[in-house]
């Protein structure tokens, strides 16, 4: 069964963001990795790329499907999780520990449009 982590912001398209100061760590939820199945490739942006809330910033490919990654916030990519290049299966092992990109938020008020863990849990069960 999928696990849910509190203290994070979630989007309808199953990305999460963990906010630390002016930075946010974006990844996919445990629910999303369960639904995708074995992840075989993660397509990530490059450092200094701009991401926009609600727009695609990469993709996750599993043996079942390829899904776009939709950014929950706008900002600048300051780091990508390079470990995922060789070991995309890290997303299956622990989706919350293995974030995909670290972003410097340009508009923290966008976080208000996202869900907390309880709302996200209800969204997944609906």
């Amino acid at each position: 069964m999928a696990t849910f982590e509190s203290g994070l912001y979630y989007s309808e398209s199953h990305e999460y963001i963990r906010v630390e100061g002016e930075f946010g760590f974006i990844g996919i939820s445990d629910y999303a990795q369960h639904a995708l199945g074995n992840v075989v490739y993660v397509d990530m942006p490059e450092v200094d790329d701009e991401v926009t809330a609600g727009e695609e910033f990469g993709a996750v490919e599993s043996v079942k499907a390829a899904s776009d990654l939709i950014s929950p916030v706008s900002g600048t990519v300051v780091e990508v999780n390079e470990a995922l290049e060789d070991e995309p299966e890290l997303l299956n092992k622990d989706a919350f520990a293995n974030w995909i990109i670290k972003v410097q938020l340009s508009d923290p008020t966008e976080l208000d449009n996202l869900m907390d863990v309880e709302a996200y849990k209800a969204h997944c069960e609906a």
Partner: protein
Amino acid sequence: MNRTLYGNLIFELSKKGRRGYSLPQDYDRTHSTAELPEALRRSEAARLPECDELTVVRHYTNLSHNNFGVNDGFYPLGSCTMKYNPIINEEIAAMKAFAGLHPLQPAETCQGALEVYYNLQQSLAELAGLSEFTLNPCAGAHGELTGLMVIRAYHEAMGNKKIRNEEMKKDEAPASSNSLNSTFSNSQRTKVLIPDSAHGTNPASAAVCGLEVVEVKSLQDGTVDVDHLRQLLDEMGDQVAAMMMTNPNTLGIFEPRVLEITDMVHKAGGLMYYDGANLNALLGECRPGDMGFDVMHINLHKTFSTPHGGGGPGSGPVGVRKGLEQFLPTPRVVMENEKIGNEENKKDAASASSNSLIFTISHSQSAPLSVGSFFGNFGVMLKAYAYILSLGHENVKHVGPLATLNANYIKERLRDDYLLPIEGLCKHEVVFDGLVDKSTGVTTMDVAKRLLDYGYHAPTIYFPLLFHESLMIEPTENESKETIDAFIDVMHTIAAEAKSDPELVKTAPHNTPIGRVDDVLAAKHPITTYWKSLEA
């Protein structure tokens, strides 16, 4: 068949010096390359496998036995319409008079072939409710791209017209710009609306055509969210080039508001594109043209019984509504003499007298360029035309209804064991969301693998993406009740096995030449060429 031996790769069966022929001792082996310039000759051996003829024959016969096609058994692959390929189609396509044709042959020497080509265009137009078809695209996705290029050319021309009108008003000379410019200088219509449930080829084709994809949301039952569509049209209606739709949609559900949708898009100035992948459900019953679609492609290998196998050849004819014919690619086969029904004219054509040419090949200068080589895959068209004529006007009407009946019969008989996410009638295919009982841990993948043990091809799995455990079954109209009942029994057996012996299902297949393959390894580290060096 000794699979252990002949199931090896042909490279692994190679033994140095083995030959399938013997030449005289004094044969000059340099003979064939002697005339070639040094630069064109290999500097090292080609490392081809070396085998005797019998080993080669057994190897490939073994491979062919490992294959599974419609001729081997039930093949309920949803979304792909794996229809039986009647043998008469093959016989006709193999006739010397057709197979021996050269694409550059003068029109007066191949009137019969051109007549078949022309008649197939007309037949498809009639069945689709559209005006004209080009048969040139070589596959479904090629058809999608061609159709979108037609739409783009249309908007370009409309943009030019507008500019010309404005310039005329300013009392200036009419602009002589090229309406087939590959840029969008004269059209703001660059967006294509595509439902989130669409086949992946739709957004891919739009992107390749240089258009921007905008996703339209689906309702819970997988049909288009018309309110969301209205909202998008309000926001960006004047930028919409087209909306692409599959009907019935990828879940096998007929779009009940299709007339409203096509009307809304037309009012915004966009065109409607019909993805013909699921046309089989409608064949003989209703027509995309009557629903308001302007451009469509047909997969002859799905709806019109031509083979899918071996990666082709395919055929993806594109049809258009009246008023869009001038944007179809060339070459086109044109009938010069409208009195085709007149026996005298037919006789004249057969005698190949250039004075009485009925069918000519048009390479109009003003029309768009070719989208491929010559006329597309003519052999495939012959098979599709043979299929249409074999069915005839009366029987073609039974195709859609029987395909739909078969799918609904399977739906109702399997819903006790397999989770049915959408109530109500489906069309030619039915989607389940895995087993009803999820407690065993047996997934759709496991069910699909276990079906192989029972001699059935697996259905489509994990598509559509709307459900996590999609299992999409499309029986087609070809199958007898006995075949379908036997399949249903096996599906029930597997559901029972999932409870009594889940490991058996999770480790399936057990009776196939190769067991469960490692999907993850294959996706992460694909090995596509033979890498070991042959025996020196």
